[in-house]
């Protein structure tokens, strides 16, 4: 079986969520299939600047074929177009222009797929919202398997993505909430889909004492791992923690990750910066719990890692995915305001039995649904299923409207579409349910 993993950026040192996801999937499917990665020659997700050489190279034993990006992103143009399609009535043409503006615009990649797509059994596209996935899936309708990595953001409400969700062979969802969102916006229930997520390489013997000795932190710790960014809910986290620290002066908030925003000067907030995986897992094992303040997550790998280490999480309850994961796993509490944050944190910190029970549930949940053998099996089962599918039953590809149709301003604002989608955790058993 020959597979193409198509992703916007690829590299051993890239830590973006979807990019890391794609690399893990490619590397874990490599023993089962002939995997090739098709990507762009950029590492900058803001400008898509061509900073790598186009061509083929090997990354961790996987052949990676890079294609140039034809135009860099103009942030002003992209912002203007985003405001238009998200907030105003617009046309399909405006959405296609928005997609080009967002990038990474790589016609060479799409051309390669058009010419050689049939040589692959399946092309696994990552991140529905980018140029490569939209146009690549359109030119390889018989091979396209989409890993949407969708969140509740306005882009999901764009009209052009409905046919894309309905036109692929299968979707590999990260969570039940993601599946509910995509089915709600596109009505693609007939397209095969499975909630898969992603596994994680968690060491079996992390050394919490090593972390404590290295940092000198011996009291209880609350840990946050990820980009320290206002968009990740860190501002609210700092606010809540500083209020809580007035009550509990022994607790320390440990931050791991690159800061995009200012970190408040506080004696109980400790920023360790970007650390190695070993140090990260040591820190997580030493912590009482992990906090995930983000409002938008499609899966949150770090949550799964915490559960794999037997640590409970305290998640932002306004994020449907995190809330749903906590409810399904019974391995974390969630908050929607400061009172709930303080109560939940206090309970987890002070009640050892509850903390241990939540951690144990998290470990069970991870072992059951997010170990790599399970993830690989789900992918391979889906490929088998698709190969046995009768080609006559495949849905016909929906064409893009014509010249006049693309210019008709009848498409509602994407934000309104997303606002109408159901909220809250989705029902579903574990992560194994398949539709």
């Amino acid at each position, binding site marked *: 079986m020959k597979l193409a993993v198509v992703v916007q950026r690829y590299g051993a040192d890239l830590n973006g969520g979807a990019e890391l996801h794609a690399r893990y999937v490619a590397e874990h499917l490599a023993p089962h299939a002939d995997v090739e990665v098709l990507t762009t020659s950029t590492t900058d997700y803001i400008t898509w600047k061509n900073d790598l050489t186009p061509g083929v190279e090997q990354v961790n034993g996987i052949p990676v074929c890079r294609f140039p990006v034809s135009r860099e992103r103009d942030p002003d143009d992209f912002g203007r177009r985003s405001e238009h399609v998200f907030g105003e009535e617009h046309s399909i043409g405006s959405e296609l222009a928005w997609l080009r503006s967002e990038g990474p615009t790589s016609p060479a990649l799409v051309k390669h797929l058009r010419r050689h797509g049939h040589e692959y059994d399946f092309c696994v596209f990552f991140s529905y919202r980018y140029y490569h996935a939209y146009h690549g899936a359109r030119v390889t309708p018989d091979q396209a398997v989409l890993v949407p990595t969708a969140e509740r953001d306005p882009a999901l409400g764009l009209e052009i993505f409905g046919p894309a969700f309905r036109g692929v062979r299968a979707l590999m969802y990260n969570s039940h909430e993601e599946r509910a969102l995509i089915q709600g916006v596109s009505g693609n229930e007939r397209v095969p889909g499975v909630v898969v997520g992603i596994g994680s390489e968690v060491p079996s013997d992390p050394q919490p004492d090593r972390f404590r000795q290295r940092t000198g932190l011996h009291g209880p710790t609350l840990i946050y791992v990820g980009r320290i960014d206002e968009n990740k809910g860190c501002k609210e986290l700092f606010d809540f923690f500083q209020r809580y620290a007035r009550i509990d002066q022994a607790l320390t908030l440990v931050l791991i990750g690159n800061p995009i925003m200012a970190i408040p000067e506080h004696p109980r907030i400790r920023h360790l910066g970007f650390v190695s995986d070993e140090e990260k897992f040591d820190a997580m094992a030493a912590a009482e719990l992990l906090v995930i303040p983000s409002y938008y997550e499609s899966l949150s790998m770090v949550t799964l890692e915490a559960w794999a280490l037997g640590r409970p999480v305290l998640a932002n309850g306004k994020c449907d995915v995190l809330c749903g994961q906590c*409810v399904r*796993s*019974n391995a974390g509490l969630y908050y929607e305001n400061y*009172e709930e944050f303080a109560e939940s944190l206090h309970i987890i910190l002070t*009640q050892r039995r*509850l903390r241990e*029970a939540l951690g144990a549930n998290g470990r069970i949940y991870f072992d059951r649904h997010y170990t790599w053998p399970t993830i690989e099996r789900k992918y391979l089962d889906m490929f088998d299923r698709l190969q046995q599918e009768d080609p006559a039953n495949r849905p016909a590809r929906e064409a893009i409207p014509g010249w006049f149709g693309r210019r008709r301003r009848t498409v509602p604002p994407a934000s309104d579409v997303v606002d109408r989608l159901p909220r809250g955790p989705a029902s579903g058993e574990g992560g194994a349910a398949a539709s």
Partner: protein
Amino acid sequence: MAEFNIQSDSVDVTRIMEQIRERIREKRGADYTEEHVRELASVKLERFLDPRQVRSGLVEQYRQLDAAEGQDPIDWSTPSLLGPPPESFEFDTETIYKSSRGPTGKIIQMIRKLLNPFLKLLFNPDPMVHALTRQAEINAYTLQLLQQQTDLAERVTKQFERAGAKFQAREELDSLNYEVLNNLVVEMTRLSVDMKNHMMRVESVAGRLDFAERRARALETVVQHRSTPSTDEAGSRDGDSTSGSGSGRTRRRRRRSRRRGGGSGEADAPAATQPATDGGNGDTPVPTDAAPEPSGGGTSAEASAPAVDTDTASPTPEEPVPSAAAPETAPSVETATLASPPTTGDAGGDAGGPQDTPVSADPEPGERSGDPDEQ
């Protein structure tokens, strides 16, 4: 914090979150309720604006701010923009031939006039003259408008400055409002505590009064037993022979009911012997009750009893004395009678007031013995 009953294999995050949210709601319930807030909001503020209660000069500052706010209202009326039309610069067919060179100029003007037909062959200068005239008028008019706009802008700026000052005054007023409200809450809390203290003191005083009355009655009994044992005995015998034990019980019950309060008095006393002026409260001297009864009411001891304490209805003449040799037991006997469970008719009197409480049992004064005034 209440413990959650968590079993390792039965953690239900949804239920825990419900419990957490319930606890948060309970905590919030300890704050002001919605009714309290509404009540506070509906109270008229001026009622509490007393300089003796709040900081010195606060009300005066209020009034000053209020006056500052009220004075010099902003005039938003639109000023008259149009003045008289500007003077026009005269243009006519001759103007364009004129010259300012004096005598030479006249020659030039004449030459120009002579050549005018040739000029008119080329173009007609009249419309140009007319247009220039109009333009001059328009220019002057525009200048005037600009001047007026400048004036208007200055006035608007001044008015904005005044509005800014007004906003500043409003901010000061807000801080004063906050201070007054804060004082109000403090004062109301203090008054509430004071009121509770006073209520407790009234209860205490009432209890002590009742105890004192009972002690006085007991002492009177002892004194009278010692001073007039023969009379007492005669009276007692006389009473027994004339009215019998039933009448004695009736009087005793009447006295008890009077002591306990109006409700019980009304319920227990026969209509014939309980006058309307009694009021049932047991505090009013009852002339009819003090009047000679058929059974030995004419003894000297009985005549002196109401004068001592009409409320407590001296027990000596009417009370069947168990034994003249044991006068000290009299108070305890009476107390035991009073401490008996109230009848249905007594219920209203028992519930009548706090003064019943110390009467109800002997240990009560002892319980209150912590109060040094009581001893």
